[in-house]
């Protein structure tokens, strides 16, 4: 489908610009975090990340070129394929870091759980869009719950607690915007909380350990607590202006584990200080704000729900990731979008941005 002139006019350069800016901040941080490994450029993390950016941008433009309504039409199909991939990854995924989250496709590690967030947004948007003028009873929550529960459990089994938990706010936000009865949703949330003890049983030992450590980091200062303590020292010692790029001692002295992936924000906080950390957070906020603005301006309920879901998804990823690096939340292992090293996460985020631009360009205005 060709884009017409109005589409081009609405093409959101600002959104794409901020995205690329955040990516650049990420590349600088990844460079600083991994320079000590002394890899050749062609095998460096920076190089691989730039490769992923190129792929991600191509997918972003493909996402834009087809109307989001097509994605809505195909949403159940996309969702089912994605769920099957999650099953497959459980069965034959490679074990890395004690978790089975990856496929290896032609040397690329592919993580279906990164995409299930988007598939869930599409399928739920489809559902609420179809119910536009019908009333919401308790029964109408059954299908969304099943749609949430299947990937939630599969992702939890991987085990990827962070991603599983992310699905929950996305689920609620789409149903809220989609018009579900707020009392019913509230009741469901309470039921969910009551079921936490059951949920606790499914967790792996190390996940339980991480949650316990959050409550008291001194339980395990040598293991799980170590990362939190070191990360806090890194960020805290950054102060107002930071120690300067590549000058973070916590970073350079190898005190931070997983610092180019989930804990990349510690490197930013240490090297760029409060100013840099705040600026980065603000850039994310601009993207999220933009997503909500697009949702507000869109009269079509399908598009509104998609934009809203993406906004909530990005917001929670960012806030949870930052909070865990400063010890405000348990370490659940989710990457910082656009900044953490990792191909699938980057590509999935760019796809989400693409969907956002798509909705913005094709929304039916009032």
């Amino acid at each position, binding site marked *: 489908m060709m884009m017409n002139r109005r589409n081009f006019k609405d093409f959101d350069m600002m959104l794409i610009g901020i995205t690329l800016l955040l990516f650049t901040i990420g590349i600088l941080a990844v460079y600083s975090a991994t320079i000590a490994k002394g890899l050749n450029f062609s095998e460096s993390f920076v190089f691989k990340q730039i490769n992923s950016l190129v792929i991600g941008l191509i997918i972003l433009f493909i996402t834009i070129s087809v109307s989001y309504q097509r994605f809505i039409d195909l949403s159940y199909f996309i969702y089912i394929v994605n769920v099957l991939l999650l099953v497959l990854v459980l069965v034959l995924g490679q074990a890395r*870091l*004690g978790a089975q989250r990856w496929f290896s496709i032609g040397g690329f590690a592919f993580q279906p759980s990164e995409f299930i967030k988007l598939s869930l947004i599409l399928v739920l948007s489809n559902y609420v869009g179809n119910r536009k003028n019908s009333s919401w009873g308790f029964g109408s929550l059954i299908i969304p719950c099943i749609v949430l529960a299947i990937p939630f459990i599969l992702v939890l089994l991987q085990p990827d607690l962070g991603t599983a938990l992310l699905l929950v706010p996305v689920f609620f*936000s789409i149903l*809220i*915007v989609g*018009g579900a009865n*707020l009392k019913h949703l509230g009741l469901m949330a309470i039921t969910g909380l009551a079921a936490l003890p059951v949920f606790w049983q499914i967790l792996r030992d190390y996940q339980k350990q991480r949650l316990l450590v959050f409550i008291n*980091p*001194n*339980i*395990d*200062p*040598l*293991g799980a*607590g170590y990362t939190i*303590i*070191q990360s*806090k*020292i*890194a*960020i*805290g*010692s*950054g*102060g*107002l202006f930071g120690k300067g790029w590549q000058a973070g*001692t*916590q970073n350079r*002295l*190898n*005190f931070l584990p997983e610092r180019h992936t989930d804990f990349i924000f510690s490197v930013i*906080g240490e090297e760029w*200080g*409060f100013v840099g*950390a*705040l600026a980065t*957070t603000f850039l*994310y*906020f601009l993207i*999220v704000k933009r997503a*909500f603005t697009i*949702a*507000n301006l869109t009269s079509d309920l399908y598009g*509104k729900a998609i934009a*809203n879901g993406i*906004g*909530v998804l990005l*917001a*929670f990823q*960012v*806030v949870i990731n*930052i*909070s865990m690096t*400063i*010890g*405000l939340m348990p370490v659940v292992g989710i990457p910082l979008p656009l900044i953490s090293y990792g191909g699938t996460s980057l590509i999935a985020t760019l796809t989400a941005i693409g969907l956002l631009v798509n909705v913005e360009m094709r929304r039916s205005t009032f």
Partner: protein
Amino acid sequence: MRERLVTVSVSILFVLACLGLFYVQILRYPYYSKLSQNNSIRIIPINGPRGNILDRNGKVLVTSRLSFDIVIVYNELRDKPRLINLLKDVVGMSGADIAKSLEKASSRAYAPFAIAEDIDKEKAIRFDEESLGLNGVTLETRSRRNYIYKNMGSHVFGYLSEITEDELEDLKDSGYRMRDLIGRSGLEKYYESYLKGTDGGTQIEVDSMGRQTRVLGVKEPICGKDLRLTVDLDLQSIADKLLGSHAGAIVAINPATGEVLALASHPSFDPNVFVRPNNSNERLRLLRDRKGRPMSNRAISGLYAPGSVFKIVTSSAALESGRVKNSSYFTCTGSYKFGRRSFNCWKEEGHGPQNIYSGLMNSCNVYFYNIGRLAGVDALESYAKLFGYGKLTGIDLPDEVKGLAPGRSWKKLYRKDSWYEGETLNYSIGQGYLMVTPIQVACMTAVIANKGMATKPFVVKQIGPSPVTHEGLRSVSLRAQTTDDIRRGMYEVVNNEFGTGKRAKAEGIVAAGKTGTAQNPQGRTHAWFTGFAPFDDPRICVVVFLEHGGKGGVEPAGIARQIFEEARRIGYL
């Protein structure tokens, strides 16, 4: 407005995250900045000791003891000359050693480095007193492995050595740290995950002078699990003693259960050598000795021609085929004509007419050439495999090898040639391509001792408080008549005054057995004896193997007798 609900909650989250950043980076900046500048979190590990290894009666064989190391963090040393003096005067290190160690430590200036390991307790206490106020230096206690009986049973226990960086990369998640020891062979390797303790530690905050200011947290160490073996200390110790300066192996198992009562291999090594840091020359000598191969467990990793002990298999194949009965006689004239070649019996003048009993008793080659040919190579191969040759016994020790039970298809595949009848003759007397381990010979003997039931050998019967379940006996479907005939032949070997294994006869113990004298390309013949006792209700199978040990009926049979006697002395038989 529903959208507002979502937007406002999300905005609140962002504000909270920013407040968190403000708190950590602005309000708490002085605190974290100091921590980071001083790099001032220290973890003092508390070692989770490795599990002990006990014999079947609970006697301690391998344990851990406390030892002292002097550990430095190079970039925190303020007074190097004083440290050097202390190391010289108190510990007694040489100037050159100290210089070399400091050089090494400087390449990892931020990581703790053990500059002196396993020093005496008195020295440690004196050092601790005199090093007061010395920055960057700590005295660490560690538990070190102690193999109480030194060389005895070393191949069963195995040894430990420090984890390498590559391994650490893979094993970090399992709780391994730098300088941790990891099992390299034997039980230490096989049961590593059970034996290993989990380190605990105290995390402390120190000031810029290196003094502890407060304890941030404590994690209790967890001890590794104890292994209770099936091995009997007395039997193991006599087995090791009897091997003496021989190269070879002794295996004793309980045929009814598969319990390994003793498993010795010589030349052996003292695993303590790998524990002490200052024995690197001795370590290298052990690891590099290609000729004596002291690190190799000959009982499970040594491959040898079985020689005449294999006649047990030949007998089974022939008797089961129905072509040979216990009443079938073949006459030995001292040699066997095959085509233009002549295959000799070990007795030049010949044994005269032989049946299964006298054939086994005299270990008459000509008798076995005859019945081996009647059975045929395919039957020999399938019975060899039935008795466990050419595959792992599955004993719970690492590095077991499976050997080779050859046959037509093997020869076609690996030698690109067809099977020759002459090779069947060699096969019948346990020569040729056949390669077996002593533990396999023990398992073969157990089948006969058990009247047709195979057993799987094992060394560990209990891990921590929980018994290990083992698969029981497995029938190999031999006719009762077959095992009875072979048992009677083996009885004659030991109890008949002309039996080849009569030296295995012990006063008051009814034993049965088979000798073997295996030719090999390396030189003098290998000597085998395998036997079991008591005859009616076997509770022990003993295999004695001596590399280049001459005749099986001489030394090995004598050693087996002493093991039977020791088993009775300790009340086992």
